[in-house]
């Protein structure tokens, strides 16, 4: 950080702008690809998963064993938000049928805004995300067949769907920051929990890892089971419960880089 002569300044200028342009273009291309896939798809029989892997023994055998435990899969758009979208869709869908769990969750959701504001998020914007989040929750609260359709419709409307994702990201971030002493151990490198949240949790399109899932399930008191399907040994997609020992309310399928919803 010494005083530098400034002769390469013009070059630097264009370089910075060029980099940003390239990044922008890359983002645009990725967006176009992912936008051809529904934000949240229809429920499909699990056999549709097998059909994807007719040529691939490892995956095929895992898809087959998965079929003994699960009947349906619901795919989500691979846009980096898939964990949060899949999780919230699956959980709200479950709550349509379970009145008292719904009420408990609604209470928690209602209070969550003040928690976030007290952590320093700007109230003006948090409130906006929170309002939309509550609106979606209340549509589910009716507990009818119509709620199911409504949920599906809202989750496929970008405006609602993404606002729900943003809000869940904030809740996860809030959880991580409140329990920073604990979560610090899981963060690689010399980033603080707050830095990690700003870089990996709060921004849209950032993919989720174990730590996001742990924070999310802890914040909402919701058990999540993830089935990991990869090239690893064995013929079964390994199950992982978050938090450990809590009966899962939401089942997700993980394939490298992506989460979909599973139904037993």
């Amino acid at each position, binding site marked *: 950080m010494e005083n530098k002569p*400034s002769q390469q300044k013009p070059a630097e200028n264009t370089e910075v702008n060029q980099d940003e342009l390239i990044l922008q273009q890359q983002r*645009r291309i990725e967006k176009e690809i992912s936008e051809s896939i529904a934000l949240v798809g229809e429920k499909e029989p699990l056999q549709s998963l097998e059909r994807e892997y007719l040529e691939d023994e490892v995956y095929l055998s895992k898809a087959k064993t998965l079929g003994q435990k699960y009947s349906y899969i619901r795919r989500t758009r691979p846009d980096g938000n898939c964990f949060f979208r899949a999780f919230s869709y699956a959980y709200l869908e479950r709550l349509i049928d379970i009145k008292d769990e719904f009420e408990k969750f609604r209470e928690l959701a209602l209070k969550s805004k003040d928690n976030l504001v007290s952590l320093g998020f700007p109230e003006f914007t948090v409130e906006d995300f929170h309002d939309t989040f509550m609106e979606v929750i209340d549509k589910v609260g009716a507990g009818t067949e119509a709620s199911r359709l409504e949920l599906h419709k809202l989750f496929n409307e970008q405006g609602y769907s993404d606002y729900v994702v943003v809000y869940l990201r904030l809740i996860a971030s809030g959880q991580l920051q409140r329990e920073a002493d604990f979560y610090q151990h899981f963060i690689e490198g010399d980033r603080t929990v707050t830095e990690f949240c700003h870089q990996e949790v709060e*921004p849209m399109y950032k993919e989720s890892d174990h730590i996001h899932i742990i924070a999310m399930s802890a914040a909402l008191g919701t058990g999540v089971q993830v089935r990991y399907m990869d090239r690893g040994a064995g013929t079964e997609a390994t199950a992982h419960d978050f938090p450990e020992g809590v009966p899962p309310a939401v089942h997700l399928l993980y394939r490298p880089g992506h989460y979909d919803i599973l139904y037993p």
Partner: protein
Amino acid sequence: MAQPTSSALRALALEYKSLQEEPVEGFRVKLVNEDNMFEWEVAIFGPPDTLYQGGYFKAHMKFPPDYPYSPPSIRFMTKVWHPNVYENGDLCISILHPPVDDPQSGELPCERWNPTQNVRTILLSVISLLNEPNTYSPANVDASVMYRRWRDSKGKDKEYENIIRKQAQAAKTEAEKEGIVVPLTLEDYCIKTRARPAEQQLDMTDFYDDEYELDDDEDDQLSASDYEDGDDSGNGES
């Protein structure tokens, strides 16, 4: 190119209305073109008791179609000699950068963009950046070097100061041509910019009714009273 989403329009309409009702000290915002919510003109009064005192700086803010998931950009239309402003006027400030993890940039990661940032938080960062340039990632290296000489000599080396004051003065003359009186005391700065009548306020109901299908009850929620206030609006200059 992607269509602007209803979220972007909604978020911008909401923010615009809030800023008209309760402006940020030292700033005025309006639309560059009434039909386009995605480009704002921001006028910044130089804070009293700083080098920028008396100045009146104009900038354009451009919002991406996927706002608030991605940040807007800011370009000064008035000449501004500052370590973090490029020659073409583009402002380089970390809050407007997507949160990529590059230790090279020298910016504190905690200031990166996230969807809860908004025009209000951006403007507050801008005013504090004016007075406290970030010399770790200068956009204008000459200005940065000059600024550090001024700072390290405790103001004895006046080259930086003189340029800023001259620019502020020139900007003030421009402002007077437009019939704008730049507040010079802290009192005027706070009062004038706060209690502005909402003369040319846009009729936002148009946006709500026509442009997107979201809730009809939105208008009721827009009373100015429940916005964050106080705690950070005095940032930097109090």
